[in-house]
């Protein structure tokens, strides 16, 4: 048996009471954190003996932006498992497929899981929330908000970008991506940088232009970077997929 514990900042958002994991005697602890580059949550599994063994990706059915901060809520915590999964003392049950797990799709679950592949579904106590069916860029910039308010402040220099600045600059960048760089909707651009005030502009500009953005860890060496530029993605994390599974 394994379970999850979320980091304190997300416990509330996931509606998992602090006391609950203990009551359920979880033997494997996972720590949920938001991957700042990727904008998706990552669970690192730690086995009972506390050795870090593997990592699974967690699909949270409800992710939204509220006042610039990621908030997470929703009824079910789906889990996408993409590689080796430690189960209690027996390590490594290899899952070679990807599956989206949901209590609403137990049949799907049974089809895809063998007996050794243990799964738990954790239900949130929050009510159902509709996922907006639109781009994250549209979602962020289409709501009524004060254009004059600062969106990003560079701590090093104090340079401030207002929300209007961010929208204008990203749409200008997007224009050049389409017209100067001749990229089209669905093309991929790579982004290899540590954090800076330019970072969100590049990411949002790429999304505004309709591109797929692959973010690269800035500590990668050329050979690791090469791997990312050449290797095939193995996992899928897609909130709308969960939505379809739940409603479909």
């Amino acid at each position, binding site marked *: 048996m394994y379970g999850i514990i979320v980091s304190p900042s997300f416990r509330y958002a996931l509606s998992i009471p602090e006391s609950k994991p203990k009551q359920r005697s979880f033997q494997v602890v996972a720590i949920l954190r938001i*991957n700042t580059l*990727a*904008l*998706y949550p990552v669970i*690192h599994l730690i086995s009972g003996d506390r050795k870090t*063994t*593997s990592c699974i990706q967690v699909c949270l059915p409800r992710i939204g932006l509220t006042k610039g901060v990621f908030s997470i809520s929703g009824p079910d915590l789906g889990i996408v498992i*993409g590689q080796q999964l430690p189960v209690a003392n027996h390590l490594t049950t290899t899952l070679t497929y990807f599956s989206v797990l949901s209590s609403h799709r137990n049949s799907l679950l049974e089809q895809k899981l063998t007996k050794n592949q243990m799964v738990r579904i954790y239900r949130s106590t929050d009510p159902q929330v509709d996922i907006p*069916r*639109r*781009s994250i*860029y*549209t979602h962020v910039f289409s709501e009524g908000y004060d254009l004059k308010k600062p969106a990003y402040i*560079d701590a090093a*220099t104090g*340079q401030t970008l207002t929300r209007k600045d961010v929208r204008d600059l*990203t*749409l*200008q960048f*997007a*224009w*050049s*991506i389409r*017209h100067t*760089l001749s*990229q089209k909707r*669905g093309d*991929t*651009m*790579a*982004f*290899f*940088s540590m954090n*800076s*005030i*330019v970072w969100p502009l*590049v990411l949002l500009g790429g999304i*505004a*232009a309709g591109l*797929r*953005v*692959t*973010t690269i*860890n*800035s500590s990668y060496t*050329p050979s*690791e*970077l*090469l791997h*990312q*530029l*050449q*290797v*095939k*993605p*193995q*996992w899928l*994390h*897609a909130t*709308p997929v969960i939505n379809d599974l739940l409603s479909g």
Partner: protein
Amino acid sequence: MIFFQDSGAYYIFTHPSLLNNAVETLKLMKVNDVDIRKRIILAGPPSSYSGIEKGWLHFYDLLGKGQLEKEELFDDEATNDTVLLCYSSGTTSKSKGVEV
């Protein structure tokens, strides 16, 4: 669900301090020098520049030329399109790609 041979990126936007790594990577991919100059675009705040960036295209060069009236829309069914290709080694081994 997964259809890519690789992340397939043509342009690489990179922080000036990582320029060398980006260049070395494209060399490993047997990209010639002319194309390397084309494919790498620098993207960092003004404070990140040290002089090595001369002769490279920069993020700021791509601003102010025009402005899309509206972003590319991904409504309804199109919300299933991929927007991010994230890679993480997940503690062990080589990095794995995740489509978001």
